[in-house]
């Protein structure tokens, strides 16, 4: 077993082109667990932590609507909690705060969450609601893939053997964002289900991403259309009544495709996304994201 520590993207992509399927390790918080459980045997492996092009985040285009935020695949959860970024992407910061423990948040990365593509990956419903695209790179060039096409199944992605996840590209949206995650303990828990809600005042859209209630992150499109009608777009706040909240919750619940497993049961998961969805929409009235 050989370990490569490339110090530039070019070096990394060349190594990946020469050895398709070369294992990549970022924070190692998923990969090493797989190895320890004997579900994955490491052959040659390349570390991503010294590749500067994969770190950090930057703006692309205008600062407001129309612009994008490009989040490097090496971005850690702790970095997602940095106030500057958290203000731009509050739902991502909220999701990051629910991940693991401080140690895991210091090591675990966005790219790793995407690479694993677990149905319980906490950034995935957020990225779905943000309508993010995944930027993939190989020695042959780069391509942008919408999140919904990138995640092809539970723990399955469209990543080619010679590719590397470079970044997630997120359109800038003005408006309230929420992320709620249900787990059986108050911290450091895998999602039983999660709901991300993003208001895009420019596009007059409410977008909802659901986690852990299907093989891949789910968009609740019908609920989104309904919600757009009950938001006062002059203020960006929910302006309906109790019946609207209930209806919204039901529509979100109907979009879920939960299963029974050792973490919960399908009927609870459906109920819980209903409750979380209506609470998320209701919270837009207070407009405090934190």
């Amino acid at each position, binding site marked *: 077993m050989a370990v490569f520590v490339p110090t530039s993207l070019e070096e990394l992509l060349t190594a990946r082109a020469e050895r398709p399927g070369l294992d990549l390790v970022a924070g190692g918080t998923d990969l090493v667990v797989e190895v*320890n*459980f*004997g579900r994955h045997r490491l052959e040659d492996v390349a570390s991503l932590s010294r590749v500067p092009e994969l770190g950090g985040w930057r703006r692309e285009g205008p600062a407001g609507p129309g612009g994008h935020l490009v989040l490097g695949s090496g971005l850690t959860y702790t970095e997602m909690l940095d106030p500057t970024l958290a203000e731009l992407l509050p739902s991502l910061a*909220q999701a990051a*705060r*629910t991940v693991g*423990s401080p140690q895991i948040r210091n090591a675990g990365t966005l790219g790793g969450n995407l690479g694993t593509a677990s149905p319980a990956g906490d950034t995935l419903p957020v990225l779905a609601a943000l309508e993010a695209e995944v930027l993939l790179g190989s020695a042959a060039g780069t391509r942008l893939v919408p999140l919904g096409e990138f995640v092809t199944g539970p723990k399955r992605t469209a990543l080619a053997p010679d590719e590397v996840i470079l970044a997630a590209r997120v359109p800038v949206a003005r408006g309230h964002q*929420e*992320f*709620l*995650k*249900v*787990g*059986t*303990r*108050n*911290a*450091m*828990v*895998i*999602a*039983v289900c*999660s709901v991300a809600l993003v208001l895009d005042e420019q596009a007059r859209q409410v977008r909802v991403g659901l986690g852990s209630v299907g093989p891949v992150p789910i968009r609740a499109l019908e609920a989104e259309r309904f919600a757009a009608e009950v938001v006062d777009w002059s203020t960006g706040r929910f302006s309906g009544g109790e019946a609207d909240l209930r209806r919204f919750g039901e529509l979100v619940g109907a979009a879920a495709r939960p299963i029974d497993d*050792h*973490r*919960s*049961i399908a*009927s*609870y998961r459906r*109920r*819980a996304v209903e*409750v*979380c969805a209506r*609470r998320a929409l*209701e919270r837009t009235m207070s407009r405090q994201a934190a």
Partner: protein
Amino acid sequence: MGTAPTVARRDRLGLGTSPLRPDGGPKVRGEFAFSSDLWAEGALWGRVLRSPHASARILRIDTAAARALKGVHAVLTALDVPGSELYGLEFQDQPVFASDVVRYMGEPVAAVAADHPEIARRALELIEVEYEPTAPLVDPEAAITAPPIHPEGNVVRHIRLRHGEDAEPGLPGGDGLVSVEGTYEVGMQDQAFMGPESGLAIPDDGGGVDLYVSTQWLHVDRDQVAACLALPPEKVRLHLAGVGGAFGAREDVSLQVHICLLALSTRRPVKVVYSREESFFGHVHRHPARMWYRHSADPQGRLVKVEARIVLDGGAYSSSSSAVVSNAAAFSSGPYRVPNACVDAYAVRTNNPPCGAMRGFGAVQVCTAYEAQMDKLATALDLDPVELRLRNALASGDRLITGQVINGTAPVAEVIRRCAAAPLPEARPHPPAMALPGGAGRTADPARVRRGVGFAVGFKNLMYSEGFDDSSSARCRIEGGAITVTCAAAEVGQGFVTLVHQIAEDVFGTDGVVLAPAETATVGSAGSTSASRQTWMSGGAVDAACRAARDALCGRVAARHGLSPEMVSMRDGRVVSLGREVDLTLDEALAGDVVDESVTFRHAPTVPLDDKGQGDAHVSFAFAAHRAVVDVDVDLGLVRVVEIATAQDVGRVLHPLQVVGQIEGGIAQGVGLAVMEEILVTDGLVRNPSFTDYLIPTALDMPVVEIAGLVEEPEPGAPFGAKGVGEPPTISSTAAVAAAVRAATGLELPRVPIRPEHIALAAQ
């Protein structure tokens, strides 16, 4: 808030102060060597092959391919066990390796030793085991009458307890009696210690072996290992290696026999460290329970009769099931005066994971049921739950449902009063999201959070019961100016190593005493670090040994100086006469000689329960009360335990900080059982053998612990008057949390752990 003592420089030595643990600094700095950190030159790595089936016949085992793998030094199966094929704590009914049938998922079938853990893992993959799976017996109720899954039968023990004039099944007669009934369940809890099973075995040249291992009882391990190895006990020397928690899970043998077999057959040191997953299969768990109860009381709320049927699932092998079910029966009606009782308690075999000792040992399960019953009774009688408990509280001189009269202290009313008197925590007007149910997940809507308060009282026995010859040995040697105490008591985190120093300080007036490592070669058995017994038993033994050594030394000095023995004593580590005419250092006092005193300490004898579950089976009892305050998100069913107030009967506080440590830790485990901790088993297969999915409380799940009272009524007959404090904190904390969640939701919630769906899907 609370009465948690801070550690200050001590202005005096001895019992009652809070010296720092000698191993505390190294543990906090990460320098403490746990059993998994041990290494010896040339050591091999051992691993165990386990059954993937809960129930199967073994048709064939072929180890040839594994043996042929380069780097593999031994592949052992049942055929390679030279001595007893079976081991066990109470009955020898568990095979070292399964050979014809496997009775639970994870049962050992073979073991390998190899140059590297990865080679060992690959070797396991190369062992061919042909199984013929059979339908597992997984319903403990059905097990009572089902065809036996083990030659010893399915019912490990049935206790048919009949007490009082109205002891047969059926409602009592009488005017205005109120009866309440319920069926309760407790899931399978794991001890979830941090340090997985691990050890290092080093063979010697004479066919013997030294085993460094984390365990709760060195000598009982030694005897079981020696029997399986067909060696005389003195050829098997056990040494306590750094223990990362125990809670009952290290009472049974796990890797001990396998690792010694591997070391003896390869003539190389062998190291074994279980992974976290393997650890879930490597030790016993807390018995899941199903319990039917009927309580009857008079209109004043005085209990008239308790009827119960209790079924504990012991899993495939007996472990300590017979003692656990004895406790479950004896404590089945709680710390209350109950004139008539009719209790049938069973521990049965199934093809589920074996269950045995865990903190609280049979008393925890029944407490969740009888305390739920007391609340139902309070509602039926329209009485305050605390008042109902006070009206029935046991006191010294009362009789238990086993017929035993409590001769020691029983401040039940006092712990109830002190706990109930603690001020309730204020509801915060604008709690941060982290402090609400759901915590970091930000799910709570404060308008949909309900607060509930629940109260529970529990008790259990201290020390071993039912006629067991329970003893502890200690040795004190004074030589060349040094005082050395030797005792085989296993330090598993509880703080015995601190206590020994405090005891010796009181005897010798100096803090310079050395505690020798715990092992089996130079000192007798200290008994198990369990049953809240080491402070009493090994504390008593160490105290007696130190006193014997001191008195021997002082006696010699007195004789040498023509003084009567009572004229000479020890002060500040020096041997002095009353008027200080004689004032000697230890070295001077010894005058080239050595003092070496060994003592074996025993508690008062007990007797087994008779065929009606009656008898003076127990030595002493400890009591505690818990009041839980919870916030519940009634839509999502998420629970936040806000605070637990507690008062505990401790006899005497010997180390204030360690008492608080036991209370907080015990409450953490009690909270865990109430709202999250459960090994999920389907058709005998464990579904969550990891800390990813076996959830234990984090700092955000741990409530504020308010110690409302440490009730100090010295226990007659106990060394220092102190009662063990380790178990009571877990016994009623679970029941209190469950009661609080019921109060918040209005739901019956007869099962722990309470899962979110039990609340969210029950509500309208």
